[in-house]
């Protein structure tokens, strides 16, 4: 189930909230847990047992680890507790990729290929695996104590607002919120509703509109694309990604707020960044934090000399790329960002304060080229597309719909202006009316997009 589906917006969410608000506060965690399992089972019934079994296994492993006296045992159990979710992630997400590559090598050597039944990818596994890791590591580091109740831990892992697409909530950021539930505040409920609706609008009214044209453009013959078309396409995709992902994060954060949770922010005007390293502090912040705290620092961070620091950065970004998808384009995309991070450190680029507008433009171009690699899986096609971006060939602009052009322009404006909406301020009546209308409008957009009746039935 995704947030921008009718079944979620018009049935699941209202029914869940009705029960959630009506039951006594001590039952709310249980209601949320049951709803989260149902939410997951709706979209991936095959994998709900995998999710639950890995969660239960992780809980007891960490519990034993926390009570172990010897450091060696603790370390061993930590290894198992981390290996379990990472192993599941590796199996479900990368087994096909691995076998495909082995087969490609075998085929190139003229040897027989392995027969293989494709493994299906459980939805959300990239997110809940990482949350399991944060739990084990945070407890191991003594940053927090293990949860006493299995249901509380299951709630942390499966909580539906962030189960499928994050934000990746570190255990120590939310443990207290789960165990010590405070009274619901109506103003926070409204703030959450506003945030959710804004996220829905970002997804439905911007990202989806851009996505339809981007898909059409990139499905065409890239070799004949002229330079402005290539730039408009990649600018639209750049905005589509941002509005889609940040919209989904807004919805998750808003839902959490309605239920009385505070999830960490995931985006902070990333396209206003003056360097790639700044971009990664503003884009998918929770992933960046995870990678820093659970990979970069354990690898030694920047404490082991310059060469090792660059090596660590590359490792982090290669793995970040691979985390986004099982394909070489994602690895190259990670390497692309890693390359610029290293270059920035070598040149001291981030220190050029007076050139901020120039740096923003340059960073955006680097990021946009990166998104080309991210979006176009076939590397030869990707190179062709990037070549068109710098071809200096100017034909007439494509006859795309005006809604697309206007939406690109509005999205660019919203993405680059330094203004940010303040969801924390006290809800106002006019705001509520506006948000109700916006919500209804988004539902209309979702319904109308595929509604294309004939004038009458032809036989």
């Amino acid at each position, binding site marked *: 189930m995704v947030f921008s589906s009718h079944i979620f917006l018009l049935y699941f969410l209202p029914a869940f909230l009705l029960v959630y608000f009506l039951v006594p506060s001590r039952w709310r965690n249980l209601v949320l847990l049951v709803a989260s399992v149902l939410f997951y089972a709706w979209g991936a019934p095959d994998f709900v047992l995998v999710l639950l079994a890995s969660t239960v296994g992780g809980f007891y492993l960490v519990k034993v680890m926390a009570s172990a006296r010897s450091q060696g045992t603790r370390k061993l159990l930590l290894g198992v507790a981390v290996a379990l979710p990472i192993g599941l992630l590796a199996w479900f997400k990368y087994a096909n990729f691995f076998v495909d590559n082995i087969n490609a090598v075998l085929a190139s050597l003229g040897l027989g290929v392995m027969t293989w039944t494709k493994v299906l990818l459980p939805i959300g596994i990239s997110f809940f695996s990482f949350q399991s890791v944060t739990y084990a590591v945070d407890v191991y580091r003594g940053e927090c104590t293990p949860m006493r109740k299995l249901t509380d831990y299951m709630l942390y892992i499966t909580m539906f607002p962030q189960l499928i697409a994050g934000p990746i909530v570190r255990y120590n950021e939310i443990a207290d919120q789960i165990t010590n539930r405070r009274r619901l505040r109506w103003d926070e409920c409204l703030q959450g509703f506003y945030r959710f609706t804004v996220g829905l609008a970002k997804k439905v009214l911007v990202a989806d509109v851009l996505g339809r044209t981007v898909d059409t453009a990139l499905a065409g013959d890239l070799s004949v694309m002229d330079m402005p078309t290539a730039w408009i396409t990649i600018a639209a995709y750049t905005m589509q990604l941002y509005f889609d992902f940040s919209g989904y994060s807004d919805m998750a954060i808003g839902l959490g707020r309605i239920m009385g949770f505070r999830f960490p922010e995931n985006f902070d005007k990333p396209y206003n960044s003056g360097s790639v390293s700044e971009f990664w502090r503003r884009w998918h912040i929770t992933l960046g934090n995870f990678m820093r705290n659970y990979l970069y620092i354990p690898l030694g961070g920047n404490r082991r000399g310059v060469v090792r620091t660059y090596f660590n950065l590359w490792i982090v970004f290669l793995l970040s790329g691979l985390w986004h998808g099982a394909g070489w384009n994602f690895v190259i995309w990670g390497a692309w960002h890693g390359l610029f991070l290293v270059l920035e450190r070598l040149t001291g680029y981030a220190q050029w304060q007076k050139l901020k507008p120039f740096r923003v433009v340059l960073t955006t171009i680097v990021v946009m080229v990166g998104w080309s690699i991210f979006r176009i899986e076939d590397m030869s096609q990707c190179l062709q597309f990037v070549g068109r971006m710098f071809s200096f060939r100017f034909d007439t602009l494509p006859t795309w719909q005006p809604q697309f052009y206007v939406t690109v322009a509005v999205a660019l404006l919203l993405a680059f202006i330094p203004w940010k909406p303040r969801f924390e301020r006290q809800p106002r009546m006019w705001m509520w009316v506006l948000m109700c209308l916006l919500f209804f409008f988004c539902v*209309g957009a979702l319904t109308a997009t595929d509604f294309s009746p004939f004038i009458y039935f032809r036989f």
Partner: protein
Amino acid sequence: MRQHKILSIVTMALFLLVFLQQCWHFIPVKPLKGAWVVDSCPRFVFKDFMSGEWQKGIDRYVKDHHGFREPAIRLYNQYVWGLFGQSTNGDVVKGREGWLYERYFVEDHYQSRMYEFTDTPEELLAGFDAEARRLALLQRVLDSLGTTLFVQISPGKDIVYPEYLPPQGEMNRPMGPQAYKVYPALFDRYGVRYTDICAWFLSIKDSVPYRLMPQTGTHWSNIASVYAFDSVMRYMQHLGGPSIPSVSIGTPYAARARGTDYDMGDLLNVVFTPRGKGNMYVEVKAVPSDMPKPKLIVIGDSFFWNILYNFPLDQLFAYTHYWFYNNTIYYDPDHDNVSQVDLAEALREADYVMLSYCTAQLYSLSNNFSVKALEALGIPID
């Protein structure tokens, strides 16, 4: 804080209202226009649940039935139409100066209809030729039975008013022959009787004080359809079949668009439906007559609806059976569908059989009627 509590509860109540509206439709809303397939609510089957098919079916069902769906769609469509001049309905194409065209006609105009029917232009042309030869054969057989068969070609808006068409753009589809450019020559070659109202409209469009095709409709305008069918009736009598009572046509008057004159506007499903300008109407009356009235079977597309609405056909014909795309039958008390009809008997009984197809529907001329009729009459098809 109290206001926040009230607003939160009202928000929940609004969600509940959507659900109640879906169940009981207690608040009247303007229905959506057009024809579409509605999925029924899928039955729960565990296997389907595990494969995700049941969930998809439920989502489709909710999408098609949720409360206040109609105003929600109209509101969004109005935004897209009003702000960007776009239609969310792929069948409605915006032309110049507020003119609306049905997609089929635009594609026909730019010779890209072929993809719907066959693989190659040669196959398509061979199909046209075979159909014309079958109709010529059927015409001869029916003549011997005293039944007059003829083809009436209704006008395509793209042909009569090409000046308002949108630019061709990149259709990215194979080009092929246009049925309307091929059939008249084939009819002439094989001797099929036909009347080309489209060509007539094209020849008079600059000399008549009204629009032959409405700005926001896809069919002939109400007023033009009246003059067209009056001419068709004269043509029928010219063919030598039984006489048809006369009609008197009143004085044209301007009025707000009615019926099919804004069917394309309707199909936009927006809040403020564009109805077009310059719509004119006339009233048609049958001149009382004691003579026996002929029997008419019409096989064809939706252009004949205007005739059904505007003409007192019951006073002009003993019956008018409208075999819509040679499938559903309208206004035959004994049959709902052509498959129920004794075809040979029906053809012997009728005085006139009119194949009424507009230019964009000529690709499927007769909708297999010629084959079925020849089979029913025991005539081998070579």
